[in-house]
């Protein structure tokens, strides 16, 4: 194979693995409770799922507060400073134990087996600055230590300016700007990827190869600016653009944080447009949201080395993601029920990778569907059941077969992955969740049995996961 093909293939593989290895992150932040003086249940059904009030708190820029402020005004009484006397800090700890249904082979040369269980202590430890920064400006900045990387890095971040006006007919209009590092992290509903189910999941399992770009593949490696309006707390519209803002990527000549060159992978050319429209209707204890969201990413595969860089020029890989989502919530004092669903369709035009021989097709497609039902009794005992499915066109370059030990490969080049997640939750306190979660795969990387060509079945990648999740 030509070196360029290896580079192209490696970069796509790296892109896929970057999603596969990234544990979903989703949090609730006690510093918001300290700032507002309101209990978790005001903004969350059970963390991190937001209530309508929680969505409006976020849309209004995380700025609602009841803390004593350090203030300053100018001669026209315009606020120049409004700073809480204590910084809005919070901590989150996840401790977990994971049992894979079947252990993994050790290496290509050995058929000895790994341990099936993995303890994460911590799996994740995060520190947040989450709260008001200035009049009409708020932030949710998360720094995370994760046991897989063994380092501390930037996690989900959302900086906002927001304001609202009362229209003549007593309706409200919220408007704002978000600077964020993960498409949909700024979204208000839990049916979109960044804050979607599963809210906590293991980082010691085998993850499937295929994922759409908007489904977390570019998280923390992009910077976006989006503007949004929300009319009457019902109709929401947002438009924005994203650029690459990669972490730990150095320019090989200067050793500085940029500019990005051919050693970087999957670099956005120009800007990637992002759009979102949603409508939320409330009646009695019911709340229903229907929406669409999407983005188009044109990526240079890059991924070369300093000795053999892959130029960030010429053809690109274009990913057009368009998704629909739905969220229904029923919130009573005793019983809470929610249903969330999304379907993301991705059309790929892989001119760059195809020209380099890294994909079998010039065009591919991928569709991910998730449906989640959740019930809680008194915010204390609950459970969720979720059906997930990813299907798409067969492409032996994109979803490659590999030698032993397989596991993360696909024998037939098909991305189909389907399964279920069921979990039970107990919250002794509103800021502490104990989760027992089971994940079952009926299909994995295109097959049910021997999906990797090395004898592993989809069901072997199922797992049981115990998570203790504390935020304070």
């Amino acid at each position, binding site marked *: 194979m030509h070196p360029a093909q290896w580079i192209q293939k490696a970069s796509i593989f790296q892109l896929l693995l970057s999603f596969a290895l990234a544990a979903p992150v989703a949090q609730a932040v006690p510093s918001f409770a300290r700032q507002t003086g309101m*209990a978790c249940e005001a903004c969350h059904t059970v963390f991190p799922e937001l209530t309508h009030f929680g969505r409006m708190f976020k849309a209004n820029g995380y700025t609602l507060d*009841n803390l004593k402020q350090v203030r300053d005004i100018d001669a026209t009484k315009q606020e120049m400073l409004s700073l809480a006397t204590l910084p809005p800090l919070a901590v989150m700890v996840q401790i977990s134990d994971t049992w894979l249904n079947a252990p993994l082979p050790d290496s290509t040369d050995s058929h000895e087996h790994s341990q099936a269980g993995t303890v994460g202590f911590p799996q994740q430890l995060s520190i947040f600055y989450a709260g008001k920064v200035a009049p009409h400006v708020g932030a949710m900045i998360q720094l995370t230590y994760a046991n897989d990387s063994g380092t501390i890095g930037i996690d989900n971040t959302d900086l906002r300016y927001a304001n609202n006006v*009362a229209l003549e007919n*007593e309706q*409200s209009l919220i408007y704002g700007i978000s600077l964020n590092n993960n498409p949909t992290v700024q979204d208000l509903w839990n049916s979109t990827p960044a804050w979607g189910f599963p809210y906590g999941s293991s980082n010691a399992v085998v993850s499937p190869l295929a994922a759409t770009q908007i489904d977390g593949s570019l998280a923390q490696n992009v910077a976006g600016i989006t503007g949004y309006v929300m009319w*009457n*707390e019902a109709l929401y519209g947002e438009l924005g653009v994203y650029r690459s803002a990669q972490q730990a990527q150095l320019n090989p000549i200067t050793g500085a944080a940029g500019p990005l060159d051919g050693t970087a992978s999957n670099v956005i050319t120009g800007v990637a447009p992002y759009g979102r429209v949603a409508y939320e209707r409330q009646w*009695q204890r019911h709340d229903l949201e229907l929406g669409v969201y999407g983005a188009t990413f044109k990526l240079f595969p890059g991924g070369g080395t300093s000795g053999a860089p892959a130029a960030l020029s010429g053809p690109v890989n274009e990913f057009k993601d368009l998704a629909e989502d739905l969220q229904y919530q029923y919130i009573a*004092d005793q019983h809470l029920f929610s249903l969330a669903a999304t379907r993301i369709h991705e059309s790929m035009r892989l001119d760059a990778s195809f020209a380099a021989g890294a994909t079998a097709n010039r065009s591919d497609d991928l569709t991910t569907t998730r449906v989640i039902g959740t019930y809680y009794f008194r915010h204390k005992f609950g459970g969720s059941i979720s059906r997930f499915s990813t299907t798409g066109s067969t492409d032996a370059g994109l979803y490659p077969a590999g030698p032993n030990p397989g596991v993360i490969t696909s024998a037939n080049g098909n991305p189909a992955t389907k399964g279920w997640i069921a979990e039970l939750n107990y919250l002794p306190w509103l800021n502490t969740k104990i989760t027992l979660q089971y994940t079952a795969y009926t299909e994995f990387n295109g097959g049910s049995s021997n999906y990797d060509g090395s004898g592993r079945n989809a069901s072997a990648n199922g797992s049981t996961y115990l998570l203790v999740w504390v935020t304070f």
Partner: protein
Amino acid sequence: MTNRLLINLCTAILFALRLAHADEIDAASRAAAQRIAVGTCASCHGPQGHSFSPKFPVLAGQDAKYMVSQLQAFKAQTRGDADALGYMWGMAAPLSDQTIVGLADYYSRQTPIAGPRGDSSLIARGQDIYQHGALADGVPPCAACHGANAVGMAPNPRLAGQHAQYLMKQLRSFQNNMRNIAVMHGVALKLQDGDMEAVATYLQSLGQ
């Protein structure tokens, strides 16, 4: 003795003047209150005080003095039912006296509307209890304090058009003293569960 009387008299006059001043609402305060009501309170209490969920009370047309007393109770953390702790203690904490008066004024001026009509026989039974009491159980007529049409008699709240489930939850809060109001504790203790539901269903069905 005369001096003490004089001091008391002066104090009373000053207090009355302060109260009178606090009740005055200028245009700027009115606009500020409207902005808070539309931009923040409406997220739970609905547009113009017509909340969707019975978790949150309807505020449209509520008696202004009652609203002031409740917002002050939230701010002072003396109203102790669960939702007061979870939501309103924090929400009311930064409100100034002037803003509280402005918000009470805003909601008292919103037009109340009748809630969904429940079972007719339940409404009829509830109306009877509301107007005449459940004398066998020692329950006095609610109308005596809340008005014949349940529109409120300051400082007692308007109940007409309120969510039935919210009313029942408050009655239970009076029963177990989470809301510590002696009169309502006595009344709610004597109310049978069925009567409670009947009265709440009747009150929800009332409009202006």
